[in-house]
């Protein structure tokens, strides 16, 4: 049974993890898309398009891996329950 305090903690945790993911995504896409020559201050068209696609791909990979992890832990839990029942 989750208490209100626990629900609160989980909600805060989710916000924190979302921020963490956002930070990592920004770092990853900067590394992938932004050249380091810095000849000009504006984003080039290429950089802008790359960033758009990078964000889309990052979120997609993040979600897919999350689903895979969830499936794996559900499989583990089911196996553990089976063992417990024996």
């Amino acid at each position, binding site marked *: 049974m989750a*208490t209100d305090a626990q629900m609160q*903690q989980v909600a805060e945790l989710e916000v924190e*993890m979302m921020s963490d*993911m956002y930070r*990592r995504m920004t770092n990853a896409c900067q590394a992938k898309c932004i050249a380091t020559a810095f000849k000009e201050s504006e984003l080039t068209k290429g950089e802008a398009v790359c960033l758009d696609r*990078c964000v889309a*791909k990052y979120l997609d990979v993040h979600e897919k*891996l999350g689903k895979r992890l969830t499936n*794996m832990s559900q499989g583990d839990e089911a196996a553990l329950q089976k063992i417990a029942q024996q």
Partner: protein
Amino acid sequence: MASEQNIQTFRDFLTQYNLVAEQCFTSCVNEFGSRTVNAKEESCANNCLDKFLKMTQRVSQRFQEHQLLNAQANGAAM
């Protein structure tokens, strides 16, 4: 409270998840010709995740073995 421990465990799990997602993305996705992840990238990411999990399990096992050996050595010395 056991639930504090659970929250901490869950926090660690989520941090690892974010970390592996970042690492696998960085290693596997190298071209941005399109917005969608192709089959090769997806398979690379899946392999990356599986390998990461197996790696952490193995590291944990070896570490525990070392801890055990250390504890035994310390016990014998006393």
